[in-house]
């Protein structure tokens, strides 16, 4: 790249991150209800709690995508040694 501009996250990684946003934020009017209760919880509380567990799955996918691209793009560095001189 001609400039040292920051590498942008890839589109597919961004789309994976969009899934939790749709599920927990934009779709609120679809799941903000008491019934049906699941595991004793009102539906909205159950829905959000489930997505606390599902969000890391989406982000793990994004992580795989990002790290794969990163290792393809640049030669692996000597790793961590430069930190030792702090």
């Amino acid at each position, binding site marked *: 790249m001609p*400039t*040292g*501009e*920051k*590498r*942008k*996250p890839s589109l597919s*990684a*961004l789309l994976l*991150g969009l899934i*939790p*946003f749709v599920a*927990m*934020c*934009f779709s*609120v*009017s679809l799941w*903000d*209800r*008491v*019934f049906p*209760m699941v*595991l*004793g*919880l*009102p539906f*909205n*509380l159950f829905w*959000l*709690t489930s*997505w*606390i*567990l599902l*969000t*890391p799955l*989406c*982000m*793990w996918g*994004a*992580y795989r995508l*990002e*790290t794969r691209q990163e290792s393809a793009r640049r030669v692996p560095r000597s790793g*961590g040694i430069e*930190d030792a001189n*702090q």
Partner: protein
Amino acid sequence: MSASSTALTVMCLIVAAGAALGFYAGAHRKMDLEQWAVGGRGFGTLLIWLLMAGEVYTTFSFLGASGWAYSRGGPALYILGYLSLAYVVSFYILPQLWEVARAHKLQTQSDFFETRYRSKNLAAFVSIIGVVFLIPYIQLQLTGLGIIVEVASSGAVARTAATVIAAVVVAAFVFTSGVRAAAWISVVKDILLLGAAVAIGIVVPYHYFHGIGPMFAAIARAHPAHLTMPGATKNLGHAWYISTVLLNSLGLYMWPHNFGASFTAKSGDVLRRNAVVMPLYTITLPLIFLAGFAALMVIPGLKNGDLSLLAVVQRTFPPWALGVIGGAGALAAMVPASIFTLTAATLFAKNFYRSIFAPTMSDARVAILARVMVGFVMAVALYFAMHSSTTLVNLLLWGYDGVTQFFPGVVLGLYWKRVTRAGVWSGMAAGIAALAVLLLGKHDPIFGVNAGFAALCVNFAVVAGVSLLTPAERSGFHESLQTSTEA
């Protein structure tokens, strides 16, 4: 021993043990400015995790979340939404931020603005805004600490006295230790709070209702509208939820302390992995909500919802258990309060005072001024804590309204070549001005939308517009980043 003295004794023992651990962690290291403020930039996954988890288990989520579940109902759910999503946002900006920070030896958020936009004045403005909006967050912790001591002592220690004691203890703690100490005490407070959340969230519903399902069935019968939005409020509906979750999830890492904490990581990859797993850390928050909902049925009519969790604990558990939970809660207030105070003091001394008034000041003198500012910041937060009766959640909502105004300057600074200093200046000024008008004029929410979010939209529009109207300028980052990757 009476019930309240048992509870108080246990609580003090826990706080003392936590403080001792913190002093020990800070004792062996030379405390220059870099070490005090960013821990020497050598934290691995574990310590970063602990520092960043600070947000999840503070007085805000412990007493504030249950308080809103009790007094507001459905709208409190925004807390569950925004925390997970904030980590999603962090995945896309923190690793990049970390690289820039390392290349330019940045310590604070204002350093970022100063270097990227080549402007000391902009950085000084960012520092002052950061300090101003950290104050309600510190106030929140002091108020929470006051509530804990008041309930644990069954009212024997008055709220005012308790709040003053809290402020003094926190200030003393910040003087002697630094960010590393705070991270280590976080270990103790998080383990205790996790235990407390599980115990409260499960025991309370079973004790009074024979189960979580029957409890919610009872609430749905007695207060049919309470469990969904807008709950017990008139104007916190779905538009408010969406705008608040967006604002807060974009804002979590705009807090000067969180921004700075990401610089303490060993690598950008540590931050990325952290972003993947962090949402799991919030999994006990629903249990804390259960306590607030239970209190609605068990002890209705509390004037201050923020008391609901402790009041239901006091009614359900033996005094020693109230002491343990109170101690955990006290640490959950003290650790974040000390981090916030440290951040505010450093920002003021380094990025405001030195930048503008005393460019030749040595690092050693800056460190001294920062320590003086610790006392001043505590005093201001204490003053507000004693003279305000806002709910804990509202205090944090105001904080987010303010700090999220940094978001356009940060994210565009990283990803948009065309953004200019004048654009960021005017956008941020417009955002803060819009916010002031809306909050002081009591127009929050405005047309059902969170006022901070409305201000953020103004901010974004102005940054983009003014940047395009002003001539393109060189970023302070690119060149030196280039050289650092060649080295």
